[in-house]
């Protein structure tokens, strides 16, 4: 099972955008090496929009109170609850795809 979100070109390099997936909000980030990461879009601290946060190759920093989360594991680095991580990739047509199971 997988869900197509939209063309990867929608996300500028180094930024994130929010998508609705089955009623959940997912923030998808396009790292500077071109790879994607997908996490729950809401900061568990005070509900900040994580897709508006700044990222590097490892973390996203929430724009509201600068809580940081590991992009790959979803783990909070600043004492907040952890985020859900979604397996994400790009299909042959250059679309962002969220997998409900990790692809073999």
């Amino acid at each position, binding site marked *: 099972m997988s869900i197509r979100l939209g063309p990867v*070109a*929608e*996300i*500028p*390099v*180094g*930024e*994130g*955008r*929010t998508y*609705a997936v089955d*009623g959940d*909000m997912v*923030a998808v980030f396009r790292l*500077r090496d071109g790879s994607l990461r997908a996490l729950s*879009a*809401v900061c568990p601290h*005070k*509900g*900040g*929009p*994580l*897709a*508006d*946060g*700044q*990222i*590097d*190759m490892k*973390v*996203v*920093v929430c*724009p*509201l*109170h*600068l*809580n*940081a989360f590991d992009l790959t594991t979803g783990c909070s*680095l*600043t*004492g907040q609850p952890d985020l859900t991580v979604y397996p994400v990739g790009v299909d042959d047509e250059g679309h962002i795809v969220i997998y409900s199971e990790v692809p073999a």
Partner: protein
Amino acid sequence: MAQRLVVIGNGMAGARTVEEILARGGDFDITVFGDEPYGNYNRIMLSNVLAGVEDESGIFLNDLSWYADNGITLNAGVRVARIDRFAKQVYAEDGTATPYDKLIIATGSRAWVPPIPGVHRKGRGYHQGVFAFRTLDDTRAMIRYAREHERAVVIGGGLLGLEAARGLQNHLGHVTLVHAAGHLMNTQLDAAGGAILQRSVEALGIEVVTDALTTEILGKHSVTGVKLKDGRTIPCDVVVIAAGIRANADVAEVSGLVVERGIVVDDQMRALDEADIYAVGECAQHRGQTYGLVAPLWDQAKVLADHLTGRDPDAAYHGSRIATKLKVAGVDVAAMGIQTAERDDDETLVFSEPRKGVYKSLVIRDGRLVGATLVGDVRKYAFLMQAFDRELALPEDRVELMFDLGGPPAEVSAADMADDAQVCNCNGVSKGTLVETVHGGCKTVNGVMDKTRAGKGCGTCKSLVQQIVEWAAGGEVEEDPKASWYVPGVPMPKPELMAAIRTHGLKSVSSVFATLVPGGEEDAKSKMGLASLLKMMWGDEYVDERDARFINDRVHANIQRDGTFSVVPQMKGGVTTPAQLKRIAEVAERHSVPMVKLTGGQRIDLLGVPKEKLPQIWSELDMPSGYAYGKSFRTVKTCVGSDFCRFGVGDSTALGIALEERYQGIEGPGKMKLAVTGCPRNCAEAYVKDLGVVAIDGGRWEIYVGGAAGAHVRKGDLLATVSSPDEVVTLTGRFLQYYRENANWLERTYAWVPRVGIERIREVVVDDADGIAADLDAAMDASVGAYRDPWKERVEPVTPGQFRTSLPLVVLPQVPVR
């Protein structure tokens, strides 16, 4: 089998050492011998028992059950007679012999009683009515006796004597303190400090006689008075001797250990030439020094426990720099280091206010604090103690050592704060949480700040957080190299970073990471600061990577707690027109903007605007951005000046508009808020701005810099007084450029100006002492020239989905609509 550890002495040193050993999981069969028939109590609190403010049960540190619970054999009330160092046995007066593998002697000290005729009665111990003041039993007997008598004389005007005198006042009517030296507490205080203490003590109703050697205790069956060397007699029926203490090393001495003023020990607290015998506390003499205070004893106990348990076999005690803070007979007294200048070039600072009983004296050598005496006001103690203990650099204005001058709140004492005291008022972090984090192993200031979020709000508590971390780490705080870097992700201070950027011609944030960071790793938290720096350095040539921008700078609006944004159009100098107001009102109404508010910077704020609506709102407003979101030039607040105000002496409104016109939107290390006010009444609050201009009579203008009235309040320093608005505009640009090039990331002018010093800034900016004024002006010109109103991005987004919502579907904390 566990090793057998025997401890002789159940006082504060012995018990503390055992506690430290247990805390390290030390595996010993422990036997403790105590002279007194109790558990272990806090001897320091005996004066409180005497004063009646504490009852006996309140001073016990460990009661008898503690010993049982920890498997310790306590022989309370059993005195040790002798140690057999060869057979490794301890012989007690009750006839028992106890073998040991390791032995700790912690016999403390005893009251020293000067050989005054009449102190003792043959075969009866002290004369009837004479007391020493050392143990719980002494205290009990003294209280009992004093209650039935009238007049007491305390011999000894040191700490203990003063405490005894004050305590005795609770039990009888008249107390006289007799002191052989010239002034009270002569080991801690200089003469002037002692004199002021004496005034305060006398105000409490204690009579004080100094330079008074007691030559005889009078009275046949019981005490009737004391006789002094000058022939005077003081009638009394109670005498308390508090003339000092001496190390209690008899057991060690008769057992053949080396004893001088105390049991001589090495840096592991090991008795001289002994393999398995140690001494701690007041009975020990380390590097020629014996200590009569509790702090060194704690240090010794830790070292000995580290050593004995094998936690750190090479743990070494290096002596203690003694600093004390006491409440002596109700008067605050603190002392450290030397009392008076000893060398010609020692600096001495003295403040004396006898009427209030306040005296402060400091001795500084080679820029380091080497001694301090405080009487009556010890608020600066924690700060001074740190400066003394760690030999810190001292503030240029030495007076700050003695008084709080309304500077940053850094001087609050870390040690004195309660555990639950909130340190970071933005993120609700208490002192206790910080201390726990440090004890949990995190020993850098930034590390603790990251973990707890303390200091990550408005930032005003950072220096206090730093103090607490340093205090909690007990001098083991680890240098955080990042502290000197411009941003945490690039290992260089700002000047080196700027030089490297120029050398390599780095014009984008990603190229800085790739070139200047080992491994080329980027860092999210460093991007914004680098973007600001590069934009300042390269102007039009800067390669703008949008991901380097914080969200506010990506969408030119300030993100709010619910993920919406605030829109503040430019309103130069706070001057608007009816047409402009109508337009703003219509836009707000059309889009149901939840809140319309006047800002502190004399503008209008539309709050609660969703990101996707920003371009449309900008377009309908058709006004330039007011930059109420960036680390940048913000506003120029003005008063109505000479046009309308009957007091105005300069056209502040016109000058404010001119300044904003020219420097709008310029980025910097921090926000730049300005004001121009038309007369010294200062209605535009120019004294508390990053740069504030004040018109004064005669067509002249004063320029103040480094002011603040936010989380931190500071009046700006006068940079220059000039005679024309043009000069104000030029100097403003030059000052701002110098600030932009030299301040650290997020360092506001209120911190930067005092750090660099107004004299130095004036040299560069006004007098052009470095010959860089023309360069500063040219650099600022280039930045001004490169300015584009960002709200023009509304026509065509710079990146795909620049204004696409990131708002979750989940309901966020709602901001109420007014």
